[in-house]
């Protein structure tokens, strides 16, 4: 699983990577996940639907991330423009 963050001037950057089934990796992923939410990011998990359609799910806690998710994408919270 990769934790990515969209950033100005760079595009996405890799924040952390690991296998959430491995305790040491999971700890690192959870820590980074929480840090990003504390920084005001939203987190989305891209998914592929049964008919091959592309979808996304917002997650607010690492426990909501499917174990087999390949990526979690962080981006700034939306604000009224």
């Amino acid at each position: 699983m990769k934790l990515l963050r969209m950033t100005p001037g760079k595009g996405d950057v890799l924040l952390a990577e690991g296998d959430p089934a491995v305790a040491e990796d999971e700890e690192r992923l959870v820590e980074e996940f929480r840090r990003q939410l504390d920084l005001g990011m939203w987190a989305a998990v891209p998914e592929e639907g049964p008919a091959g359609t592309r979808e996304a799910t917002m997650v607010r806690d690492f426990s909501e991330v499917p174990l087999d998710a390949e990526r979690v994408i962080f981006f700034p919270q939306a604000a009224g423009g």
Partner: protein
Amino acid sequence: MRRRYVRNSARERRAEQRARELLCTTAGQEALETYERFGLLSVENDEYGYLIYPQRPLVAYDAVNGELLSEYCVRFRDGSDPEAGEKLPDADDVLAKWMALRADERELIGTANVHPLGRQLDPAMVRRDLAALRSWQR
């Protein structure tokens, strides 16, 4: 000394290219093609849809007759690196809107400032974009 944003075209081109790759792997090849061809994305259900412009409002439309409905102004600003500015690359901006609409439309639309058509985008241009997109999708 306080750092501030300085435009850097080469850096921004690289960031946009990277963002397009993320758009493709996340929303799919067709979404990337739509973005590269029309400069926008769309999300639609049986009743209504949205045109997603980079750094501009979402425009809601009636999916049955194509009538434009409202502008929804939302921004994703990141001030963590002042030298890079606050705006995400355009392809990241549309992807962020696409993901938020797909995942939690109510939250995104609840955050947006709602304006009548024409506040930021020329309705005639939006109508042309929608017609061209629908023609291409058929």
